């Protein structure tokens, strides 16, 4: 299963995104987060130390975690700011902590938190002026956190004038 979290606020790249998503295989679900209520991660650590695997924030992200438990690939579609994901795109990754647990181990040469469920591959599809190299490396590092591999960072090229 592949989960695509589309955090864009506008639809101007919808066709291009649909084409990319349709090439991801049969089992793909795209979730548009713009109308959803998703808080930033508060760093409270309750998902690791009080209610393992369950976020203390009761909002629409819980649905996303439940989906990720059955997924192998995670794509984040995001606008960019300062060359990186904007806060909406980064927010859905920061909230992924319940997918890991508190225990620490060395894994693939990195000190990491243990996976609560299974490995997850990570990719980014971005709009605007992203730093390609930074985003590529971020995908790689984020994937290491989740025990998976990077699916790479892909720039959206079409859309309207502001592309």
């Amino acid at each position: 299963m592949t989960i695509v979290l589309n955090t864009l606020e506008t639809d101007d790249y919808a066709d291009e995104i649909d084409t990319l998503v349709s090439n991801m295989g049969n089992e793909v679900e795209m979730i548009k987060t713009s109308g959803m209520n998703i808080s930033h991660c508060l760093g409270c650590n309750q998902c690791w130390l009080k209610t393992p695997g369950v976020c203390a924030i009761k909002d629409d992200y819980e649905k996303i975690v439940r989906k990720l438990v059955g997924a192998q690939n995670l794509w984040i579609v995001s606008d960019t700011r300062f060359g990186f994901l904007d806060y909406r795109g980064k927010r859905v990754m920061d909230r992924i902590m319940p997918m890991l647990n508190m225990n620490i181990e060395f894994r693939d040469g990195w000190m990491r938190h243990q996976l609560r469920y299974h490995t997850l591959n990570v990719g980014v599809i971005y709009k605007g002026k992203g730093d390609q190299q930074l985003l590529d490396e971020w995908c790689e590092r984020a994937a290491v956190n989740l025990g998976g591999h990077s699916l790479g960072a892909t720039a959206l090229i079409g859309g309207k004038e502001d592309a």
Partner: protein
Amino acid sequence: MHIVIINGSPRVKKYSNTDKIIQSFAKGLEEDGSTYELYSLSDRKEWDAARDAFNENDNIIIALPLYVECVPSLLLEFLDTLPTKRTKSAQLSFILHSGFDEGFQLRLGERFLRALPAQLGCTYGGCLVKGGTFTIRTSKPQDAEKMTKPYQAMGRLFAQRGTFNTREAAKFTGPEQYPWLLRLMVGLILKNVVNKKFERFAQGWGCVRPLDYKAYQDNS
């Protein structure tokens, strides 16, 4: 020298490791005759004042924890509200810390921060990078104080030099990566000591499940 310090951690101030680091750092600043004002972004009521201070002052430090290899989304959201041009020139510096120990864990975050000041009309005053801070919160107060104490000397140094672009600040990071034997030992310590400590700490929070509990079923 007067410095605006912005705590970019989303965790409430009372439990913020970043705040404890800032308190120790600021003690060092004051020892060397500098003054500071502090804003915490975890409280959105402080955002307007933090933005005004950012715009009106010429020496700003943002302190932050690493969140998934880069800046926490809450800080990105705040940065999004800042003007990209400014009337008064300023230097922007960073204190970046992370739960994991080795220096190389923080380098992508540092790279993002290095490129940030120019995009906000500021010059870059360097980035103080250090890992191994997760357990500040889970340690006894006296042990937590021991962990944040080294930041006091860094505060004094910043007050004297006005930048983190110094050899001492670079050295503060510690090893980029542990040698393999140390990694082996640290691995054993994690397994036999640290993770068990986390389990006990969790029980103190009223946790009734094992830490690796699978809360949701895979229904795919």
